[in-house]
């Protein structure tokens, strides 16, 4: 008899610290106790991969604008947001899904084959396929490529720091400033997310923060103000902040979509709190799509949807007043 057969495993990757019995998986569905050893059953098996996503779709606006990014995901997530837009892949079991065979070296080879300067770990939650993300990001870095994480940031600090050494940009969800929201809507907690944002910034990684504005749940002016104040105080006023529109989906089909007016109010509040680059997503909004110079207020990067129409930056500076614009531009 294998001595490991009856041993429980505790996964220390995320704050949930799942205690996983023999043959069982953690809450993320993809980290499994097999014979007393923790195994990632999705390593090298993405359920989605494309070479044609613009980096603006992540959304990441201050990082190589106008470029396309090789994007991949496996199934699984350690959060269970009732509003998840990608719930068909984030909240499914690997055994009920389809996947491709694509080990880290092949991901890097595909990025080079399609001439993509960076790779995005996105759509579901790159933390739950941590080892795949880590090994791919390390190989990509060695090959001169950049790495972008699109994440909810629900991860313990030690593995987070270890991963970030190979990451160039993080687009991280700050879903609310309320512990009750994180508990009731996402089955998670707020503090580890805030810590992940602060740690990423402190390690010199380019950080962009996104907040999905959901009617009646996190759209009160005081919610939006406290979120903006926290980002400004802890990550800096130069941090790009995205307010994204909610669509009824998954377990939140009873709520209406976020109005453009609500998103524009969110943007106005954030800018009144001193945030310099505030964007609106999932809705057409002229003033919420472009990048403006915080000093002379002229348009620097003109966008429509995910398309960059014009980029006037000169060596990362405003061509009109010379103000340095925060971001990774080349």
């Amino acid at each position, binding site marked *: 008899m294998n001595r490991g057969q009856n*041993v*429980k*495993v*505790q*996964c*220390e*990757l995320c704050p949930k610290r799942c*205690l*996983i019995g023999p043959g069982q998986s953690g809450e993320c569905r993809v*980290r*499994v106790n*097999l014979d*007393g*050893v*923790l*195994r*990632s*059953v*999705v*390593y*090298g*098996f993405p359920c*989605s*991969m*494309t*070479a*044609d*996503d613009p980096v603006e*779709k*992540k959304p990441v606006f201050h990082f190589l604008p106008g470029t396309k990014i090789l*994007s991949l*995901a496996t*199934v699984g997530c350690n959060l269970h947001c009732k509003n998840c*837009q*990608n719930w068909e*892949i984030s909240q499914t*079991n*690997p*055994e*009920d*899904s*389809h*996947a*491709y*065979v*694509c080990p880290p070296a092949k991901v890097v080879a*595909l990025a080079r084959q*399609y001439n993509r300067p960076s790779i995005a770990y*996105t*759509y579901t939650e790159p933390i739950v396929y*941590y*080892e*795949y993300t880590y090994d791919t990001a390390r190989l990509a870095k060695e090959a001169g490529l950049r790495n972008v994480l*699109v994440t909810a940031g629900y991860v*313990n600090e*030690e*593995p987070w720091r270890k991963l970030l050494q190979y990451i160039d940009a993080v687009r991280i969800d700050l879903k609310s400033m309320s512990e009750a929201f994180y508990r009731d809507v996402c089955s998670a907690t707020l503090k580890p997310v805030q810590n992940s944002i602060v740690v990423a910034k402190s390690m010199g990684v380019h950080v962009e923060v996104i907040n999905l504005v959901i009617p009646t749940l996190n759209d009160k002016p005081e919610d939006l103000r406290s979120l903006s104040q926290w980002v400004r105080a802890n990550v800096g006023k130069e941090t790009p902040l995205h307010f994204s529109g909610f669509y009824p989906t998954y377990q939140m089909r009873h709520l209406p979509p976020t109005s453009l007016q609500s998103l524009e109010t969110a943007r106005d509040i954030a800018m009144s709190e001193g945030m310099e680059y505030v964007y609106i997503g999932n809705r057409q909004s002229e003033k919420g799509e472009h990048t403006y110079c915080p000093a002379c207020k002229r348009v620097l990067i003109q966008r429509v949807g995910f398309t960059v129409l014009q980029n006037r930056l000169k060596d990362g500076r405003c061509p009109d007043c010379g103000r340095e614009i925060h971001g990774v531009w080349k």
Partner: protein
Amino acid sequence: MTRREFLCRISVVVSAMGGCLAWMGRKALPRRTVWANRSDDYPGVIMPMGDIRTQSKWSG
């Protein structure tokens, strides 16, 4: 039995019990780890990778 012999025996028994409890405790506690080893097989269905030059339908 002298007092010295008695104390000696007691200390042996106590250390044996302590060692035993520590061993049982270690066995009862879960293995803690961050890193998950890769699994060779995918539990779902493997598909051939198609054309990846189309935008993903997923958000993000």
